[in-house]
């Protein structure tokens, strides 16, 4: 893991640029093995019986126990608004007012939803509090993200949904920013998660989940997973290797085990 302790100098994009320049030893990543291990583990947990409602595992399944404040409607709104700002920054789109631009973009993207209704029901004080938080997080985002060059093929809000165990388990993921190409020999893809909460161990688990889902989805493992906390400006970056992927698989199976036991 690489932790950057100089938040005012290095952007996440700078950090990835440096990492991409560094030639790391070629690691043969076993995507077929990852899928087989998951399939075996799911079979041992579910057996042959298909659940009537599939078990859904998301990044939040790994974070909920630790970062509960981020999963209040207020925290989710803040996160959703920061995601919209990130999308505008990633394509170098001019932002005039961090809060109003984020709200306009979010409402257009989200359409009608429970969270939009909660937003509409905020009183003036609550809205002002949300605005000041979004602006504070947005400033950190502008300082610490950096603008990915178009040659890095930035993609934003990339969704994944992988059915496993004959449809009994669905892994749902949402990556804020994906850069690099999976084509050619080896993969140069970096998966970036922007969070408005602080970075902790649960974030590491969420990053490993991202890496496993991307590997299952494309048949190619990503090269890096990284995260930026707009609460602290802290950056984490991990090189993806077999150990990381297998730990991710183990955590998915533990989470599924807990879900099965709780149903």
């Amino acid at each position: 893991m690489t932790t950057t302790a100089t938040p005012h100098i290095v952007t996440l994009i700078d950090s990835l640029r440096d990492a991409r320049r560094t030639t790391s030893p070629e690691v043969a990543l076993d995507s077929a093995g990852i899928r087989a291990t998951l399939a075996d583990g799911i079979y041992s947990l579910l057996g042959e019986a298909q659940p009537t409602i599939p078990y859904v595992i998301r990044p939040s399944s790994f974070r909920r126990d630790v970062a509960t404040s981020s999963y209040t409607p207020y925290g989710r709104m803040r996160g959703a608004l920061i995601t919209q700002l990130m999308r505008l920054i990633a394509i170098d789109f001019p932002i005039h007012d961090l809060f109003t631009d984020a709200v306009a973009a979010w409402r257009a993207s989200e359409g009608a939803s429970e969270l939009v209704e909660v937003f509409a029901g905020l009183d003036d004080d609550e809205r002002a509090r949300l605005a000041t938080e979004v602006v504070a997080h947005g400033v950190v985002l502008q300082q610490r993200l950096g603008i990915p060059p178009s040659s890095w093929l930035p993609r934003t809000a990339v969704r994944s949904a992988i059915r496993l165990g004959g449809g009994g388990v669905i892994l749902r993921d949402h990556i804020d920013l994906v850069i690099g190409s999976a084509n050619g020999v080896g993969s140069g893809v970096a998966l970036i998660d922007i969070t408005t909460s602080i970075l902790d161990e649960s974030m590491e688990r969420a990053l490993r989940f991202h890496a496993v889902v991307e590997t299952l989805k494309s048949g190619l493992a990503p090269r890096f997973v990284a995260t930026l906390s707009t609460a602290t400006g802290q950056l984490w970056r991990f090189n993806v290797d077999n150990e990381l992927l297998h730990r991710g698989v183990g955590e998915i199976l533990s989470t599924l085990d807990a879900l099965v036991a709780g149903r």
Partner: protein
Amino acid sequence: MNGVTQRDLTNASLEELCDIKGVAQAVITSEQRDALAARFRSIPTGHHRRLDAWMVEKAGIQSSDFAWSPITTRRVLGNAALRYVERSPQLSYSDAVYEALADQLDRAARGHARTGSLGQWIANLANPIVGIVVAEATTWATQMHQMMGRLGPDIAMASVDAYYDVAGARTTLRGRRDALIKSEEGRIVIRFRSGLPVRTAGAGLRADLAVEALSDPQGHVAQRIIGIWPEAGVALALDGTMETLRAGARDLVRSAIVEHRHYTRIAA
């Protein structure tokens, strides 16, 4: 390859799906076209019917609540952007999306865009929403082009979707197609889809393949159609046999019947 084949999106699987050596090309005869037209004419309609794979997948239910949003614009703008990139490979995906956006705005400004069209919708958007529209379309175009790069050198964007107007039946069939692989062995139609494939995804692909074949003046059927769900990491494929084509046509006729019953119920 009989029936629907499902594969993960590994390079080996994609190579297998793109191999159509030995798959014979079926041809639709004018008698078959006439028979299909007769079937559609036998289903009364008080308006001009528009049928597509989406309706087949939804068992004939018309989409009544369509609204433009950054997500619903991404295929139109993203595919138009990829056609720009094919013509001018030096363009970045986001620059190409801006070109596609400018085309839409130009049509709206000249008064060529009809009410409710994408051009008119974009023309009235606030600035940050335009940004999200560009971000969605850029992401779509980038992902699709990345996937196309894994499908071999013969792949190219389809210039338009396939349309077939059924003679004397006030019915237009639309077959969506995002890209085509044309080689000496024949052609493969490629569809890029969002989300997870639903149970009726195979029927949708059959309908797209049938309309694509009907829209060909010589009636040549593509050897295969491949539906790719990049978000799910899954591809479904169907060979263009006469049996597949008949099933696709039957599903479209069935959709017309369901639609007719739906309108009859409303009228009653």
